[in-house]
Structure formats: structure tokens, C-alpha cells
């Protein structure tokens, strides 16, 4: 995973709540067997409308998505995170994320930042009024900064440490091999098995 320390970029204000992962990347894109090439599928249905915010010329090259509450609900598809990253987003800000999407994003180095809705409203107003306004997401200081906005955000220390260092979860877990083996040795015999080995 790529490390995330701090990022500054222009924003896309997405005034929608309950943006489900079917909207972020429709199911027919899920037939691909790679982690890349999903950028054209991002918000595919909405992008057919030339007025959709992502299609506006002034939003090209923006890297921070500012969305309404309950972003990433629905399907567990990690493709939603890949699509956002493939398109160029580095961070998503919302007042509430769905659990699975949040977990997926942090495993891929896409920083999902939870801020109060009032701050999201302020970011919407700022970036709608001035599309060139820059937003900084600083993971080291756990802050979102923009003109007139200085907001602290929370992220548990362990997740932050893994993101700041771009650490691979599997390698970290495998350092606990002895604990896993000890647990396995003590499992009751009635637990189900799919095959006899």
C-alpha cells in the first residue's frame, strides 16, 4: 500500500447522501479481474449527464471528494475504492461512511475522513463558490485545512500508523504466527471443515 501523509488538491463537492457502491462502480464492471482500469466506471450512470459535477471542466484534476452522509453503503466491492483511486482521488470526506467501504479504503491508502456535517457543508460552499480552492488533508496532524476551515478529524492510532507508513496488513499479521498456531491447536473438534486434510 502507498503511504499517506498529507495531500493538497482541489475538491469535487458531491451533494448526495447514501452514495452506494453500486453508484460508485456498477456491477458490470466487477467482472474485471484486475485492480486497475476502473476509472471510466466511476459514477458511470451519473456521468452520462454532462452537468454532473465530475464532468465540469473546472473539476478536472480534482483529488478530494467531499460527499454527503452514508457514503459507500451497500455492496462490499473493493472495486469502489479502486475506481476512486484509479480516477485520481486521494481522499474522501463525509460525515459518515459505511463500515465495509471505510475498511476497504484504509487498506488501499485512500484516506476517508469523517467530519461533522457542518464542516462538510462549509467545504461544499467553499469549493462550489471557488472551484480552484485547495483542500489539505493532513494525516500527520489529523487536520483538514482550506480557506476559513481548520477542522480536526479522528482516526484510530493503529490505522493512522499503518497509513503513514504504507504497511502491509498481511505481513504484520504473519509476525504473530505463533499466536495463530496456538489458537488453531486449541480449536474444538466439532468446528466445521470443508474438506478432510
Amino acid at each position: 500500500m502507498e503511504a499517506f501523509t498529507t495531500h493538497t488538491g482541489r475538491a469535487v463537492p458531491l451533494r448526495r447522501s447514501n452514495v452506494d457502491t453500486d453508484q460508485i462502480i456498477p456491477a458490470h464492471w466487477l467482472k474485471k479481474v484486475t485492480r486497475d482500469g476502473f476509472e471510466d466506471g466511476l459514477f458511470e450512470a451519473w456521468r452520462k449527464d454532462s452537468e454532473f459535477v465530475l464532468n465540469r471542466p473546472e473539476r478536472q484534476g480534482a483529488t478530494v471528494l467531499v460527499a454527503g452522509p452514508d457514503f459507500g453503503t451497500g455492496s462490499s466491492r473493493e472495486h469502489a475504492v479502486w475506481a476512486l483511486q484509479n480516477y485520481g482521488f486521494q481522499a474522501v470526506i463525509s460525515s459518515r461512511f459505511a463500515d465495509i467501504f471505510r475498511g476497504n479504503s484504509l487498506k488501499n491508502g485512500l484516506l476517508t475522513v469523517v467530519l461533522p456535517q457542518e464542516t462538510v457543508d462549509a467545504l461544499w460552499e467553499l469549493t462550489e463558490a471557488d472551484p480552484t480552492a485547495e483542500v489539505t488533508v493532513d494525516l500527520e496532524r489529523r487536520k483538514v485545512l482550506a480557506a476559513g476551515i481548520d477542522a480536526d478529524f479522528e482516526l484510530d492510532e493503529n490505522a493512522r500508523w499503518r497509513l503513514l507508513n504504507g504497511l502491509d496488513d498481511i505481513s504484520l499479521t504473519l509476525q504473530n504466527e505463533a499466536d495463530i498456531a496456538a489458537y488453531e491447536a486449541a480449536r474444538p473438534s466439532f468446528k466445521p471443515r470443508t474438506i478432510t486434510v
Partner: protein
Amino acid sequence: MGRTLAEKVWDDHVVRRAEGEPDLLFIDLHLLHEVTSPQAFDGLRQNGRQVRRLDLTIATEDHNTPTLDIDKPIADPVSRAQLETLRKNCAEFGVRLHPLGDVEQGVVHVVGPQLGLTQPGTTVVCGDSHTSTHGAFGALAFGIGTSQVEHVLATQTLPLARPKTMAITVDGELPEDVTAKDLILAIIAKIGTGGGQGYILEYRGSAIEKLSMEARMTICNMSIEAGARAGMIAPDETTFAYLEGRAHAPEGEDWDAAVAYWKTLRSDEDAVFDAEVVIDAATLAPFVTWGTNPGQGAPLSANVPDPASYEDASERLAAEKALEYMGLTAGQPLRDIKVDTVFVGSCTNGRIEDLRNAADLLQGRKVADGVRMLVVPGSVRVALQAVEEGLDKVFKEAGAEWRHAGCSMCLGMNPDQLAPGERSASTSNRNFEGRQGKGGRTHLVSPQVAAATAVLGHLASPADLSDAATPAGV
């Protein structure tokens, strides 16, 4: 202090606990399918890793599989390639696979329970958000992303922060024609699509205890639509009776030891939940969705709501956008909404009891002119059981299409899709924009409402059928 069911199962799976770190949890059962696993197997290959516990891993094909002409090569080359990738990966790593055409093939969340692999007190994961289904057995079961699929394949564990717990207590009697589906849709409408976010739900109370395993699975299945990764129901005699004798259920002394353990899996009297919701079953009625998220639902007897009636600005905007997408007008009676397609199936309502409930109402009746009805059993085993009971004949004689097992029109990854503007009554779990096909409009319903709707051509409850003409030969 006492512990909740979720806390007991969680604690029993902690491999490692350290200050400032998420718990490392052992995973008892890992279910795989073709859509969310290819990149995980690639990751194993790139890092020279193996599947740690092949005996706790099983795969099936469901999301992409066609429900017609399954003996012919799959027409869509991209779908075919994805299924072939799963077959290649399972062969290379040694994973047990039930491919299309196999008697144990079907929707992954129907297959696990029917094989007896889903057991109380286990941890179950799958790269699919509806893994919450398995919580009906008192398992801690949740959907994971592809990075976590790779993590479980490589380590049989997951590092996870423990969620909070929420009790959803449903006491009293469900009225006639009110099903588990109506109950869960009403719960989601009450707490919202984000209401369960950060929680493991436990459904409890006398109304839940009376439910069959199939009905309990319907409820736990849609925990994710309430924002919760997992939903659970304490195992009881209904659970044990369902499991006894199944292919992978414990036997002999193991059975006795298992049941003794399973009986301990109840929330203690003095356990404290972080939140509680109480629902009186007697107040419920057949429930349908009108919008584009599963929380946008109402009793069938109600009217399409007026967005202006919402105080919250974001809910009001969401309702406006939903009505526009759904082609509905505020104040229109839900019962007047005409449908083009009726879909019975999915991991929510594709089990034998669901098919029986739909068939009971279709017996001696006909699907309305101009309505297409698809019945897609959740698994090959469900299909075989339905055929044995003659349900397939009931469906076909009524004018419905009897299809092969799979996820089908729940998400339209195979050819079973809605055309733009087409409207469905669907027993599945998601009414998102375009979920069942680009531009398609979905109303989530129970199998009973689906059957009544198919006959009358508009959203309808079973009671509406008895008000209409008496069926022929009854």
C-alpha cells in the same frame, strides 16, 4: 458484567489482543465466489503465499452465472473469463469449488447453511456484504473486501476493532401475511441505512424466536442494509433441528459437545447493549420500498411520501431524487404502482420456504398479462427440493419463468436485467439506482407480496388477492 451474544463469539475467536491494536480474530469459515476473489489470489501469487486453511475454505459460482442454458458455454466472454479465473485459482491452490452445473452450486449464502457449514458460534466471512445472512445461526458473520479476502486466505485471521452492540427486540405476534422480509424492511425504515453503522445487531424477542431458520436468514441478510456489518440471532432448538444431519454438521460426541457449547451462546440477562430498538410485531404490515435506498420504505397501504415532509435537508433531497428516478409522484398510493417484472430469488428470499410461500399464492392463479415473473432458486438443492414438491409446475402453470440457481436479477451481473425505465417488485435486498439493470426501478418486497403483485400487476398484498376473483379450482 454479563456479555452479549456477539461479545461471547468475538471473545472466543481472539487470537491476539494488545493495547492500542485491533483484535486479531480467527476465522472459522471463508466463503469465496468469482467476483471478489481474483485479485486476492493474484496477491497470494505475487507474494508467494499459500491458502493457510483449505479445510476452512469453500468456493461457489453465483454472481455471474446464467439462469438459462447452463449446459452451453457462457455467452458473455467477460463473465466466462471471470468464472474460468475462479476455477483456475481453486485448482491451483486446492480450494473446494462448486461450479455451475454442480449439485451443491448456488448463491454462496444459501450454500453455506444448507451444507451445515454455517454453525452457531463460528466466525464466517466472505467477500460479499450479505454474509450477514449466516448470523441467523448465532454465527458472527460479515462481508469483507478483497484485501481482507487475501488476508484471510493467507492467515485465516483478520485484525478488527470490535463493533458496538445493538439489540433489536421484536416482541408480540406478526399479523397474518406479515413476513420476516416486512419486518426487516420496517426495521431499516425505522433506524435508517446508517442506523446500524458501527454495530453488530442482535435480533431478539418472542417474534424472532418463533421464526424459522429461513426467515431468520432473511432478517440477518439485510442487516447490512441497516448499515450494520453483522446481525445475529441466538441459536435455539430451531437452529439445532435445522443443522442436525446436514453434510457438515457435527456427529456423535462432537454433536453433543457442539450443542452444549451452542446453548451457552445467548446474551446474558445482565448484558448491556450500546443501543436498543424495540418493535411491537403486532403493529407491522406488508412493507415495500418506494425509493432508491432500502430505508425508503413504507407499509403497502401508505402513499408515496412528499419530500417536503422531511425535516432533514439531506433526506428531503434524497427523497426528491428518488421520486424522480423512480418515476413516482408524492401522494400516489403505493398499491397503484404497476410493475413490469417480478423477481423471486436471491440470498434474501431464494430459499425453499420463500418459494413455497410464493407458490401457495400462485396455485390456480395466473401472472397478469404484460408482467414477466422470474423465479430463481437460491441453489441447485433448493431447486431440486422445489421440483420434488411440484413448485416448479405451479410457477410454470401460472406463467412464471422457472430458472436455474444463482444471484440473477438481484444485481444483474448475468443477462437477467431490467431494461431502462422498467419497474420490478423484487424479493432481493437493494433498490439502488440501476441495481437490477441500467435505468431499472426496483421495489423491494416479500415473496408473498411478489406473488400477489405478479397476479394483479400492481403492488399488492396476499389479502388483495382474496378480495379479487377466487382462483380457478379452489
